């Protein structure tokens, strides 16, 4: 039986920096966040 990929929640804001760093490395390693959405917008012209 396939094991369902369980997403680990991000550490609480006041957690030690090392926990945030570990989570950050895990997030950056995941392919799912590298996929560019089809309907992605672009920036527009601002007003001077």
């Amino acid at each position, binding site marked *: 039986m396939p094991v369902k990929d369980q997403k680990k*929640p*991000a*550490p609480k*804001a*006041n957690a030690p*920096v090392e926990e*945030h*760093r570990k*989570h*950050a490395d895990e*997030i*950056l390693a995941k392919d799912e*966040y*590298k*996929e*560019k*959405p*089809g*309907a*992605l*917008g*672009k*920036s*527009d*012209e*601002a*007003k*001077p």
Partner: protein
Amino acid sequence: MIYRPPFIKQGDGSRCEWTNCNCASHAMAVMRHRKGVDPRNEHGWPPAPAEIRNRLGACGGTDLAENDLAVQHLYGVNMDVRYNIPMASFRSLIISGRGAVVPIWYGVIAPTRFDASPGFTGGHGIYVNERRSSDGAYLVYDPLADHRRKAIPQGPQWWPASLLQKAAEAFPGTRGGCIHASFTRDTEV
């Protein structure tokens, strides 16, 4: 002490200045990534929105991926471009020592005191340098915040986390609770 890059405005009189938000934000991200150190290559230093734009070509809106390619070529900076990451994970990436360029929808900012382009309500790019632990606010470098008129903010501003999230979630192609962002390296290790 987290490295703070100098503020770089997009309204610098160069070609395409009012569509250079992402270029200016990436110029600030490059400074953070390199902690202000010149790569000493054949390109200019410090990073400039106009140089990034010239690498991209014609005027008009830009996105994270094309700016990433431009700053790789010009300054040897390889940003980590990520889409639809949960806001709590974005927080971890910032707390752990990275800066980020974030696409936002300016219509969310327009009614607030952070509005730096009255009448503009479209897609925009900002640079986020750090998070303040006391209230969770983010230090945002809006490249439009150049105080060119009295009511326009000047330089980096502490935006409430809820405002940043709302503006980033409203950018087209973004899932609820998530945002797109392009991260610098961790400069605090």
